[in-house]
């Protein structure tokens, strides 16, 4: 039993170490050299993410028990690490666009963003409940501060406090669920859960285990913003500065579903049908409520909160199905959702000029003012609406196929009907962009990072629409 860490072990966890190191450097820089921090923190973070990305690509899996007790080094965790790093890259680029318009200190911001990404990677690579909890908490605490980052905005402070209070409650649920499961099977390692569950003899132990599972589901449902645990999402998304909202809508959502995947696809695959049926029951109100309320939204950050909740509802369908095929469809849908949402936020980053954020009235006549921006946003919204031939249609089709196969016919039909509602509000936004009278303000100077994000997401979506085979085969490979 090797209890000494060797260089190869450090190489295995190099993405995490790089992020951590860079975050601390940024913090120091901010404390001692504010002007330098302002200039270079963006480029430093960019460099860090790119190096972490390459590190994650080439990191060898570790065999050291000191690490494998807590972190997993399989294809799935590598996939998640790369995915989260790309999300981080997108958010950092969008933040640069934001800081050109609004004044705030940069070093702390990027430190917090890097810590949030660190937390996400921990979630994706967790082999133990405690690591999972650590990841979620790191993510959440960074986000509590990030949401309240604009100190002079009233809504930002409000959002931060709301998120903090409700997030702590959800963390408490999560922790209690972990404790109950520990009480039932005597371990918090994810690997040992399934065997532990099946070896439970007494009925009371099984009830203990299932209660633990319920509490954990509640905690994770809060993170993923599922109805009825979604109440924090609209206000928090609305109050946070736009790049933080972008990060939350893609990062936290993906992180929550990564946690779901780690616990309920890897550790406890189809352990009890009643859990899957419970998830299906959760999907109905999520789909119906989110799609119905999103129709009334005017402010875009809030709109994307509800959009995110409705997509979380669609993501529950493969979660309820629970088959390996369902896992591929879940991750594929997440990829398409992330790309489309980041692309939309790229356009919003250009138009952001008030504390309240962009409203739908600011979009009026956008096509006349800037065809490129309108085109990017229109394309991303079409993808989110699931209109063929964009990749969004394939993602939804795959999800419905998996749901159908698992026998959830009513859920698939409800999903299809709520797709009609979602098509309405996404298309209405596109319609506003192509309408006549432009609102009176001029566009900000060009921001190459935001343009990067917008164009890359569109290109990626187009690529996925025409040729999704490589991603799909990558995902089935990751399932092994």
């Amino acid at each position, binding site marked *: 039993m090797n209890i000494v860490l060797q260089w190869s072990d450090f190489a295995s966890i190099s993405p995490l170490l790089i992020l951590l190191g860079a975050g601390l450097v940024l913090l120091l820089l901010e404390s001692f050299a504010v002007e330098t921090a302002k200039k270079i923190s963006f480029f430093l973070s960019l460099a860090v993410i790119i190096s972490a990305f390459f590190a994650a690509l080439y990191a060898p899996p570790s065999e050291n028990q000191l690490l494998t007790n807590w972190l997993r080094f399989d294809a799935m965790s590598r996939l998640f690490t790369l995915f989260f790093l790309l999300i981080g890259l997108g958010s950092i680029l969008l933040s640069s666009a934001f800081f050109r318009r609004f004044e705030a200190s940069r070093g702390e911001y990027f430190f917090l963003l890097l810590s949030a990404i660190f937390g996400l990677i921990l979630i994706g690579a967790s082999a133990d409940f405690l690591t999972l909890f650590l990841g979620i908490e790191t993510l959440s605490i960074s986000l509590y501060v990030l949401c309240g980052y604009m100190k002079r905005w009233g809504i930002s402070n409000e959002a931060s406090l709301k998120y903090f209070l409700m997030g702590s409650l959800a963390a408490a649920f999560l922790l209690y669920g972990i404790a109950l499961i520990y009480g039932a099977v005597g371990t918090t390692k994810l690997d040992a859960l399934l065997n532990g569950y099946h070896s439970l003899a007494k009925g009371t132990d099984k009830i203990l285990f299932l209660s633990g599972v319920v509490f954990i589901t509640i905690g994770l449902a809060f993170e993923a913003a599922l109805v009825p645990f979604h109440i924090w999402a609209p206000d928090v998304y609305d109050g946070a500065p736009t790049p933080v909202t972008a990060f939350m809508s893609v990062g936290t959502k993906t992180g929550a579903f990564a946690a779901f995947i780690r616990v309920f696809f890897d550790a406890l695959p189809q352990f009890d049908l009643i859990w899957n049926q419970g998830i299906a029951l959760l999907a109905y109100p999520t789909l119906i409520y989110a799609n119905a309320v999103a129709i009334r939204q005017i402010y875009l950050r809030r709109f994307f909160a509800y959009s995110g909740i409705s997509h979380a509802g669609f993501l529950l369908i493969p979660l309820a199905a629970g088959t390996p*095929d369902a896992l*591929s469809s879940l991750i594929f849908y997440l990829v398409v959702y992330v790309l489309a949402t980041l692309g939309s936020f790229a356009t919003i980053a250009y138009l952001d000029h008030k504390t309240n954020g962009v409203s739908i009235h600011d979009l009026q006549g956008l*096509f006349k003012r800037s*065809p490129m921006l309108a085109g990017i946003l229109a394309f991303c919204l*079409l993808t989110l609406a699931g*209109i*063929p*031939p964009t990749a969004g*249609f*394939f993602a*939804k*089709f*795959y999800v*419905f*196929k998996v749901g*159908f*196969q698992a026998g959830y*016919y009513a859920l*698939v*039909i409800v999903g*299809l*009907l709520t*797709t*009609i509602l979602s*098509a*309405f509000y996404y*298309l*209405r936004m596109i*319609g506003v962009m*192509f*309408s006549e009278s432009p609102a009176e303000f001029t566009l900000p100077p060009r921001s190459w990072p935001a343009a990067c994000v917008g164009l890359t997401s569109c290109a990626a979506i187009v690529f996925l629409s025409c040729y*999704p*085979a490589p991603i*799909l*085969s990558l995902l*089935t490979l990751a399932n092994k």
Partner: protein
Amino acid sequence: MLNLIVLFFVPFATSFAAFFFLPLAKRPLKAAAFMMSLLPLIILLSGEKSWIGSEINYDWLPGISIKFHLMIDYLSLIFLYLLAIVIPVSILAVRSAEIPYPNFFYGMVLLLQGLLIGFFTARDLAVFTIFWEGMLVPLYFIISLWGGPNRQQAAIKFLVYMIAGSTLMIAAVLALYFSAESLHGTGTFNIDVLAKIAEKAPYAPWLCAIFLLAFAVKTPLFPFHAWLPDTYYQASTAGTILLSGILSKAGIYGFMRIGLEFYPTLMIEWSPLLLGLGITGVLYGGLAAWMQNDFKRLLAYSSFAHVNFVLVGIFVWNQVAHSGAILQAFNHGITISALFMVAGWLEERLGSTSIHQASGLAKFMPLLCWLTLFFVLSNVALPGFNNFIGELMILFGLFSLHPWLAGILGLTVILSVIYMLRWMQKIYFQSPGFFQDSWIDIKGRELAISLPLIIIVMWIGVYPAPILKQIEPAVKKIASTESPKEAQ
């Protein structure tokens, strides 16, 4: 196989070129776009006999078992020809001086062409659905960006109506896939395989109803037409030509490809109801058209009435009626595109689409008057014109099964005469008012544009045998789907 690949990808390539690479002035741009839209027609005409059976079969998404399978058969070929003719006509109907963002417009029309080629040749039900919903995107932009004052509302109404009608189709497609899995061993989306087992699948009546709903909304069949008047009216001339000439044919094609081939016995069972809806649609469209004071709306309702006529031909289970329906679909596409184009020229000169705007225009614009009259007579199904053959065959087929319904349908022909000639009389033949500067007659250029359409109308009207021979194998194939049942 090479030919269908070329045919399918050319419109997408030209659309891309129109979007990004053609920074020309407006008139050369229209000419360039017109040339590019003619390419599929040229490809089709130079391929001749070899088109039937040419296919593309590519394992596109093995994870979800979607194969990119396109194949041309007799039914598809007719609609492909119609498409290849109507799209250039719609580009020609654009008033190049006034249109903003012409690049974008021509790109959208060419994109629509590509998507429809894919739709009419799709042999994989998932690919069929993708193109079915995908064709709405360019049409939405075409309606919403260029047209009348309320076009955005009309465009959203159009789109949401269409999506609402066809979303459940995804569930039906998946249900067929899984019943193929249970009945056949492996799940597949292949249309030929599914056609054999569709009626044995569980919940077949529900699935059939879902499919029929989707097609009924698009065509539109009688009670699902609420989107039609506003959308046709608010769209620009080119947009309306695309809607009436092509979109409705997509619905008709869907009825034939899936309704008749997948569910023959259900269609026969439900034919009283469907015939009732169709005939009501013809009557409703005719009566509504009679009441209109605006000739664009009049033509919209006329189009609606004629499309329902075609659907009546589909719903009656008779080979002659089916041949007539396919022929009439082609005819209607040609005639209504020509009519909207001519009406667009009239609108340019009058400045509005009201019937009472002017009268006695035949004195000042004789050529336009005679051209309009030519297409009006074609629409009205005067013998010697194309619509006569199609409508006659439908009536013939209907009479052999339901003589009373054929009688009622025959009355609607009179109705179409009434409303079309009312328009002609009010605008062209009543006593003329004072001349206005904009009433310039059409010149040789417009006549040259209409000439191919005139030739087709006359050719089919006088000598329909060649096209009927093309239609016959398609109709025989549809009829054969019923015989296994009869043999039992």
